[in-house]
């Protein structure tokens, strides 16, 4: 080891706390990067692997009733390699002890032979015996959400007849990784997917020799769009509801969005950590170079060239970075494992698979080294520029000047101590700015990491208290005359009824198309309203359709354009509709019309397909019991239950991320504040010790140093609030958000929390530094030249 390397080791050792604090900031950046992106790639792999092994279908379609003979024609569609037809029916489900109605999706399945597509994985229990009537397997998520036991009995309404089913096993399927009745929210407690013997199900619904659901697998490279088009044409005469490719399959779509979020988190937040680490390294190295002016001059005088000395300081930075990278890789691996585990559980992937790809480690280390060298370079340039002859002279005494406030004649307002603090800040504005920026960065990360629960709360509040104010929504099996509302109004506890009409539709504009529903509300609707992100109410203009902005963008249309609407129900009208406007709704991909416009467009009379009810909570139970007995009320949704389920599922994930991000942000805050304080202390030890000699107490001296930090923190917090707001906006903009657009809502407690964490980090740093101030060696410090 050369003497210079020995110096390096001892320098590092003497600054060990600072070295570790910087390394930790780097580790958080790398850890976040590796953790999020390895989770992303592991989940993408798991999804792909699961889809492959379960032979997940490429195209999905439903129809009213198509003859089995159609299968051959479907098989003949170019690009189709396999076809599977089945019977799928939604019906009311009741379990003893649960009042709100649940929905069961019954899927016919041939348990005697392995399915060609969407294969089930048995998670517990056993398969129904072939041909056994009344035995079912259920999706694992429902069993868990409802805490059911195998062997449990439940009742479903099969074609108007109450049928008793027995739960014999639980399964996983790629088709319902997210089980939902169609909305964007998981709905595990109220929506069960049951697989039962195919023949028995067909018999129960008079669907023998027929099917109403088709799955396709395509040949490699075949166009999913072309297959969707062709399948739509074949199914049209049989009441086809429009086929979709895998990318529009609800479960896959939500899953993909959820996974993609990791990529955004994994790139945006770590970038800030590395930036802050570069800042701190820059300041620390600058300080190191300044403090070692004499040593650098001596080395130059001894004949060391600039390169050797620059390399020496670069090595100093590299050791810190490599320490940070090593910690970061460990942290990232731990985090990736934990998050992948969390998601694997959440998605119920059959296998846990976590892999840290080497390129992530290389990219993370490269980014950290790049950021660090960027930060170090300016300081090292100072080493090269330093002329040895100049460095041998002690640095010129720092130039101070009266403060702005003093120049304005208000000098009397400040005590001498305050004046020292302020002048010091004014003299090194760049360093003060760097410190402030670093602390503000940690405030921003805290806000951007934890505001999600605010956004979700606000979203839920808007969605369930302002947009959908009905407490209970009823969906009818078939359109009914508008007068049905009076019948509903007579039910127990019903205070208000509002009818709605929804028709499944495929909207086309040029080569783009999207399957959704045309929805109509009554003109005077109060229980369901169309609100934009600013909570302004919108109404469809007469004779036109009002589109959610996201849907208009997806279709590439603007107000004034026309879209081709193909109704997938009733008379299956196909006609042009004028886009009257767009509305930036928070949720859904909706197409709104006035009720009479929609019924006229569909060439139907005054019919409705659903209703929203305002009810008396005390009589809710009785109402729900009555609704269960009404065959026409095919779907009953109690909004409150949806909200509860959503809160529960999101709370667990949000808590984990908040904890991790808080730890990370506190690391940054401590890293910045502590290093800043240490540097100040080193630079001003002489001054502070002199004051102690003059009779200042330890407390008074501490105020001089820590007062400056307190001011910096005070300045950083509001800046951090603003930066956090911006960062949150950036994250929201980058997040995939087809179904739901989260609003930029940050609550006061979130700001308070972020401020408090940073203040706490400041206090901890101050206490460590205070200990050093208390132990200032008055005599020793005064003896040294610097």
């Amino acid at each position, binding site marked *: 080891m050369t*003497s210079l390397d020995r110096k390096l080791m001892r320098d590092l050792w003497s600054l060990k706390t600072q070295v570790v604090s910087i390394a930790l900031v780097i580790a958080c950046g790398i850890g976040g990067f590796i953790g999020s992106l390895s989770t992303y790639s592991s989940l993408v792999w798991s999804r792909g692997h699961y889809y492959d092994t379960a032979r997940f279908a490429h195209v999905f379609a439903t129809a009213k009733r198509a003859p089995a003979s159609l299968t051959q024609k479907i098989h003949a569609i170019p690009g189709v390699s396999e076809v599977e037809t089945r019977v799928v029916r939604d019906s009311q489900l009741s379990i003893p002890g649960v009042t709100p109605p649940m929905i069961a999706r019954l899927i016919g399945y041939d348990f005697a032979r392995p399915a060609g597509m969407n294969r089930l994985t048995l998670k517990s229990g056993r398969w129904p015996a072939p041909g056994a009537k009344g035995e079912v397997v259920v999706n694992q998520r429902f069993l868990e959400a409802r805490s059911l036991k195998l062997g449990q009995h439940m009742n479903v309404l099969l074609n108007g007849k109450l049928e008793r089913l027995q739960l014999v096993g639980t399964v996983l399927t790629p088709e319902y990784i997210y089980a939902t009745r169609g909305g964007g929210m998981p709905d595990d407690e109220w929506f069960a997917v049951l697989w039962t013997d195919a023949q028995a199900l067909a018999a129960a619904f008079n669907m023998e020799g027929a099917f109403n659901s088709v799955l396709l697998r395509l040949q490699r490279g075949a166009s999913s769009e072309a297959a969707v088009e062709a399948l739509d044409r074949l199914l049209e005469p049989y009441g086809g509801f429009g086929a979709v490719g895998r990318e529009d399959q609800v479960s896959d779509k939500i899953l993909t969005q959820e996974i993609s979020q990791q990529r955004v988190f994994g790139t945006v937040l770590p970038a800030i950590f590395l930036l802050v680490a570069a800042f701190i390294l820059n300041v620390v190295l600058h300080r190191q170079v300044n403090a070692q002016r004499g040593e650098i001059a001596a080395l130059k*005088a001894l*004949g060391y060239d600039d390169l050797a000395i620059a390399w020496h300081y670069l090595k100093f930075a590299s050791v810190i970075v490599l320490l940070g990278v090593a910690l970061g890789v460990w942290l990232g691996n731990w985090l990736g494992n934990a998050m992948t585990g969390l998601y694997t559980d959440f998605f119920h992937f059959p296998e846990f698979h976590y892999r840290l790809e080497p390129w992530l480690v290389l990219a993370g280390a490269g980014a950290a080294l790049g950021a660090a060298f960027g930060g170090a370079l300016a300081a090292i340039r100072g080493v090269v520029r330093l002329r040895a002859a100049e460095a041998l002279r002690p640095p010129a005494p720092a130039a101070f000047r009266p403060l702005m406030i003093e120049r304005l004649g208000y000098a009397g307002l400040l005590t001498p101590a305050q004046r020292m603090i302020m002048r010091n800040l004014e003299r090194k504005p760049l360093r003060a700015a760097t410190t402030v920026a670093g602390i503000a960065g940690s405030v921003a990360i805290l806000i951007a990491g934890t505001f999600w629960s605010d956004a979700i709360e606000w979203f839920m509040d808007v969605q369930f208290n302002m947009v959908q104010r009905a407490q209970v929504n009823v969906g009818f099996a078939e359109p009914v005359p508008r007068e049905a509302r009076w019948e509903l109004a007579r039910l127990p506890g019903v205070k208000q009824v509002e009818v709605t009409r929804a028709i499944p539709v495929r909207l086309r504009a040029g080569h783009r198309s999207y399957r959704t529903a045309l929805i109509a509300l009554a003109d005077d609707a109060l229980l369901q309203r169309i609100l934009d992100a600013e909570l302004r109410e919108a109404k469809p203009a007469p004779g036109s359709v009002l589109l959610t902005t996201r849907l208009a963008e997806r279709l590439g249309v603007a107000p004034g354009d026309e879209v081709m609407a193909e109704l997938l129900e009733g008379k299956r009208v196909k006609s042009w509709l004028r886009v009257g406007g767009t509305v930036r709704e928070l949720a859904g991909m909706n197409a709104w019309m006035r009720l009479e416009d929609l019924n006229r467009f569909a060439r139907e009379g005054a019919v409705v397909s659903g209703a929203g009810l305002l009810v008396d909570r005390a009589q809710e139970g009785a109402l729900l019991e009555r609704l269960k007995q009404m065959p026409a009320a095919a779907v009953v949704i109690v909004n409150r239950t949806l909200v509860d389920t959503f809160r529960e599922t999101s709370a667990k994930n949000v808590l984990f991320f908040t904890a991790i991000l808080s730890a990370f942000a506190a690391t940054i805050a401590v890293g910045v504040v502590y290093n800043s304080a240490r540097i100040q202390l080193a630079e001003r030890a002489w001054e502070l010790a002199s004051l102690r000699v003059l009779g200042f107490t330890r407390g008074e001296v501490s105020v001089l140093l820590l007062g400056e930090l307190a001011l910096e923190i005070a300045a950083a917090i509001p800046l951090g609030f603003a930066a956090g707001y911006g960062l949150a906006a950036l994250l929201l903009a980058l997040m995939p958000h087809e179904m739901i657009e989260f609003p930029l809502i940050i609550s006061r407690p979130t700001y308070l929390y972020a401020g408090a964490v940073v203040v706490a980090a400041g206090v901890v740093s101050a206490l460590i530094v205070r200990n050093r101030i208390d132990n200032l060696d008055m005599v020793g410090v005064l003896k040294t030249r610097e």
Partner: protein
Amino acid sequence: MSEPVFRARALTKVYRMGESEVHALRGVDLEIHAGEFIVLLGPSGSGKSTLLNILGGLDTPTTGDVRFLEHQLTGADEAELTRYRREHVGFVFQFYNLIPSLTARENVALVTDIAVDPMSSAEALSWVGLGERLDHFPSQLSGGEQQRVAIARAIAKRPQVLLCDEPTGALDYETGKLVLEVIAKINAELGTTAMVITHNAAISGMADRVLRLGNGKIVGEEKPERKLTPAEISW
């Protein structure tokens, strides 16, 4: 008399200090011969350190010409000056400029690591009488001892010239004399050309030649009739 080691002609040096210009050297002509012991005397601001730094390749003159043996120092770039310092010059500073995180031996090893034909650290340190304190850190050494480590560090490369800027400036009388003895010994026994800057006129008794600087110029030159040993001088 031997070939001059240093030959300087019409050296000037102008520093910019904010808005004003400082003329540190205003036309210095100088020849120094191998093995000479030169003392540079002069009040503060007379240009002594500037001259020493230029001769040692730490600084360059604004105008004029300076040569070390066959090396042209004026116009040499940073790399050439670095090589020049590395191969030929030993420096001793008033405040020692030791690396506090390295022991005496390791401070000397800084030089032996990069020099062409150095003596060992231990040998250099025993030259200055510190053979027993090899593994002490600067903070564990007295001022005089620290200065002797700095001298050991300077001579370990067997330099042709030893340039000392106020080597006793920070030391007490006894310690100062001890350090001067070491410098005289190196000059006498190794034949190293020595140049010592000082405020202290008493030290001029040790010199072969005394150059007096004032206001950036050489204002006087004396050759003592008899070179005194450090033991013989007092102040």
